């Protein structure tokens, strides 16, 4: 009687003379292969932890001297003067643009990705589902510079109309106010391109979890008279929720850290430009600013300032992932 927990009732009844319940045949009791594999797995795990720790240590050691000399509030200032003295740099602009770009991208990509995954696993006939899935996966293989150029030269010129409409209807709301930046180079354009870049990640993982939905759940829903949509809502989506959240977090990681496409599309702002909440504004994200200036890190102080910005991106990604972990754990507890 197998169940979704992977433990069958049979497993729990010991045989007349066999070992206790759920014991293998000396499965992990010091065989060479066992020890090797266990060691290798443990090593791999420790290596990743060590890597992340070392990166954090590197960022901290580079950033701290510059941070100590920073004359303005690092978190709330919008200035970025790292060439001379006094040293003044703050990340308010970078943080806002990074978060806004990624948030809009996720708002578009997650529903779309889940929809595509549901179509592929629940609606599409078998002959179509495989090619459709590979096509979406193919999106992940396009280099980001290509997305950047496409966004700037192909998508960009068509953004003017959409932005004009949004501005006219919703311009009273700061997020949609005009900012005088060419429509092909705004945060909104970048967000649209990012959403396409993130789509394959969200779709691929969601597809896998949706395909795992136990057919007993689905059959039960259908047997109770549910329509297909109701079946998806009551059986497939709740089962796949943790997977979709994981997928979104992976995608968000990509969106937050995307460099080249953002750099190519988004117009940077001149110094002293007034603060704007608008998604029709330009700006720079953490990653694009660092990449754009990496060639001219000619003093330790300057490099340190950029490393400090990198550190914030690192922490931001870390926090986002931690929140996702917590949400997934809660979700699991709820299901079980």
């Amino acid at each position, binding site marked *: 009687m197998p169940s979704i927990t992977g433990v069958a009732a049979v497993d729990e009844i010991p045989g007349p003379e066999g070992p206790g319940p759920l014991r293998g045949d000396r499965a992990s009791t010091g065989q060479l292969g066992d020890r090797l594999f266990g060691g290798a797995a443990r090593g791999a795990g420790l290596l990743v932890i060590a890597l992340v720790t070392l990166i954090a240590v590197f960022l901290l050691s580079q950033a701290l001297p510059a941070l100590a000399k920073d004359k303005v509030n690092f978190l709330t200032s919008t200035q970025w003067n790292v060439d001379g003295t006094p040293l003044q740099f703050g990340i308010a602009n970078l943080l806002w643009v990074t978060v806004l770009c990624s948030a809009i991208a996720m708002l578009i990509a997650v529903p779309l990705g889940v929809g595509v995954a549901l179509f592929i696993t629940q609606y599409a006939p078998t002959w179509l589902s495989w090619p459709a899935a590979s096509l979406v996966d193919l999106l992940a293989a396009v280099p980001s510079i290509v997305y950047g150029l496409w966004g700037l030269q192909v998508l960009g010129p068509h953004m003017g109309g959409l932005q004009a409409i949004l501005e006219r209807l919703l311009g009273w709301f700061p997020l949609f106010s005009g900012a005088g930046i*060419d429509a092909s180079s705004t945060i909104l354009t970048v967000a649209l391109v990012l959403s396409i870049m993130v789509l394959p990640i969200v779709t691929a993982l969601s597809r896998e979890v949706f395909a795992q939905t136990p057919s007993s759940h689905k059959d039960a829903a259908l047997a109770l008279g549910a329509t297909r949509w109701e079946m998806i809502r009551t059986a497939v989506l709740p089962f796949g929720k943790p997977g979709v959240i994981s997928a979104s977090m992976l995608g968000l990681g990509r969106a937050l850290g995307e460099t080249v496409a953002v*750099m190519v599309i988004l117009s940077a702002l001149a*110094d002293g430009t007034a603060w704007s909440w608008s998604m029709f504004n330009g700006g720079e994200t953490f990653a694009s600013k660092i990449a754009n200036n990496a*060639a*001219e890190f000619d003093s330790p102080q*300057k490099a340190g300032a950029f490393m400090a910005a990198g550190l914030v991106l690192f922490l931001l990604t870390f926090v986002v992932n931690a929140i996702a972990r917590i949400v997934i754990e809660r979700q699991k507890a709820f299901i079980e």
Partner: protein
Amino acid sequence: MNIQSRRRLASVTGVALVGTFALSGCGSNNNASAPSNASSSGSGGTTTAACPPGTVTLNGEGSSAQKNAIEQAITDFQNTCAGATINYAATGSGAGVKQFIGGQVDFGGSDSALSEKAKAGSTSIEQTSANKNCGSPAWNLPMVTGPITFAYNLKGVNKLIMTPAVAAKIFNGVITKWNDPAIAAINTGVTLPAEPIKVFFRSDDSGTTDNFTKWLHAAAPMDWPAANAKKWSGKGEGKPQSTGVATAVKNTEGGVTYAEWSFAKDDKLGIAQIDNGAGPVELTGATVGKSVNTAKQVGVGNDLKLKLDYATKEAGAYPILLVTYELVCSKAKDPAKAAVLKAFLKSFVAPAEQTKLQDIGYAPLPEAVQAKVASAIDALS
């Protein structure tokens, strides 16, 4: 990682070569002096690159402004001298200076000469550290001049004249329409559309911005009070690299930017004539050369550090330009490499090569400067 391992490989071959030359003894010395003999006759006119013996790899790194020029020169040199391999990584002037001081490369490329003052946040002075690493004075050799254009995209306007004051006001956001009376006043007879001016600037720190703002600040200090810097201090939208700004202007009616000549040419942008006070000057190799001629040498002896006069009122001199330098040790540690470096730089500064550079958007050094650079190269050892 990749670059590192390549470098390591290069240094290994370098060591091996030192070994072979040490074995061959004074024979190599005779050969090494050959190029300088050939060049003393060549500095007057035609020059054939004399090839030093053996296979040697030189690594250079730095300024991306001179990338196309040096790549052209490298190709030509390697076609003549099969034994020599020269790598140039255009990673930016900052990186070039750093690697040269660190002794990672045989020569550096930079848009500005090694500075004599300490940079913020560090106590070391570039020139001093470079001298120390070389064990001999490090020289700044001007090699390529890159004019910077005032590039615009305006349908139906093929000729535009700019004065420093008006340009400063445009880049400062004071003048926002193309048909502004200030622009019309210096462009009589040109119909200017009533379009908004869209300014694009370099969002990365760049030598181009530095030199362009040097001109604005020197020639129109009232309208451009900010001192020159690699980081843009005016208004507008930022785009990465020269390609970014040039493409943006090309795609934007009413767009304007500052960019190296080659990028403005490639994207077929309008190039304004500059009027520093002695009448409008069109951008040509000759007008740029005239401007370089007015530059003052601030380095001592063979250190050819130049100080350009951006506010020059000399008739027919195009004032907005940058001079890129090759940074070299006056006494190289490795004689085999020194011979190749000498031969290469010699072929680079030769009139034939310099003239060729004009086709790819650079201006040749004027003859007087060419001669000075050539004699400095002769003095390298």
